[in-house]
């Protein structure tokens, strides 16, 4: 049961850019939920990712500024070298504290703070990756009643990250990027109303 979803958080690492491109390309321009993406990437690759991903999104797409209000029908990308967090009043906060699981932005940090704010109106998607970030975040999302989606490790460029999450939770949906994309872009019951 997907229910009403207000926001979707997505985490990816090794191979994650391609997976995110597939998802973004499939979203209709009026896609209602807020989408927030945390992708690991090397330090100091300045802003190139924003430019690349933006081209694939029909939904308005940007890297948020600190204390920016979160909109529906908008895709946000966590800026490199910052952790991205969500405040209770649905405003973004940035943080330059130490990397978590060796990464900044950390998927866990984003997922955990999103789960606190959106609770059961949140869906979390954990994609391909060669480390263990995101697992705890998925566990928190599940604990708060949110909907959890994990990429089937056998379909991932690297299955380490989704496998690590599967050791912590039993996801509501497990599948390839293709089936995840179908679920969120065309699944009627999934669209936030």
């Amino acid at each position: 049961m997907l229910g009403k979803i207000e926001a979707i958080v997505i985490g990816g690492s090794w191979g994650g850019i391609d997976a995110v491109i597939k998802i973004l390309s499939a979203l209709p321009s009026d896609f209602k939920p807020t989408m927030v993406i945390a992708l690991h990437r090397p330090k100091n690759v300045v802003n190139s990712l924003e430019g690349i991903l933006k081209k694939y999104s029909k939904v308005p797409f940007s890297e948020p500024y600190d204390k920016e209000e979160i909109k529906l029908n908008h895709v946000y990308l966590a800026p490199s070298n910052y952790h991205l967090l969500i405040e209770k009043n649905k405003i973004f906060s940035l943080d330059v504290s130490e990397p978590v699981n060796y990464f900044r932005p950390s998927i866990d940090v984003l997922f955990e703070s999103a789960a606190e704010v959106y609770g059961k109106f949140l869906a979390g998607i954990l994609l391909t990756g060669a480390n263990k970030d995101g697992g705890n975040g998925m566990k928190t999302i599940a604990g708060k009643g949110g909907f959890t989606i994990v990429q089937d490790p056998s379909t991932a460029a690297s299955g380490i990250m989704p496998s690590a999450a599967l050791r912590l939770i039993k996801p509501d949906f497990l599948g390839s990027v293709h089936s995840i994309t179908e679920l969120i872009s065309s699944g009627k019951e999934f669209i936030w109303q």
Partner: protein
Amino acid sequence: MKEGKDNKIVLLEDDQLEDLFVSLRQRYGYDFTGYAKASIKRRVQKFIDTIEMESVDLLKNQLLRDEAFFKYFLDEITVNVTEMFRDPLFFASLKKNVFPLLNTYPFIKIWDAGCSSGEELYSLAIFLDEEGLYGKSRIYATDISQRVLDKAMDGIYPIDMMKEYTGNYIHAGGKRSFSEYYTAMYGNAIFRGRLKKNVMFSAHNLAVDESFNEFNLIVCRNVLIYFNRDLQERVIELFLKSLPVFGFLALGNKETLSFSIFRDHFEEIDKAQKIYRRIN
């Protein structure tokens, strides 16, 4: 006390955090009530987990009773992560767009607010030096945490970091060999004493202290992100009071004045690098 996830015995609630901060304000005058909740809560939770405190009440009691413990807490919950020439393009822009205008003044006053352990400060000093401005500059370096200020005064950093910092320095357009600025000794890089000759270090809390001077340039990067919008407004007003017309304000790359009621006092000199100038 609540049973939480296996690794978190004590789960901090929002109202407990608020209550804790109000008590600390009364007791010590340090005010964290205006900090952005999501990140400060994470820090306090982490503190509780690390020292394995058994309840939030116990934490509060010990903090109120034991000042040394409070100082330790303060150091642990503030985020001091920094680096030399962080965001090289920012320093390049400062040199290109701001320094030539500063050079028209007989005397330059700069405030590095939230300077942390000094890496940003020495980066500024190095570029001022290379542009021939250092001699007529005074830099006021402040932070809420005495521990990081002590480090800033020392100007000693792990030698392992120098490779990355040299890369940043070159990327920012540094003119010399970066190693000219420090002496390598016992695994450390000791920065040249002359770089801090014109620097005044002092503790200053942006959340409660007042303006203490007027400056041609205020650099306050990656500090406002830890504050909620109300506290940000207080600090921006404080900066406004500390800047003459045509004074510069430099923020972190992801910090903006766009959401501030004071935004019309400023114009953007470099949009991407978040360098502003007061215009009225």
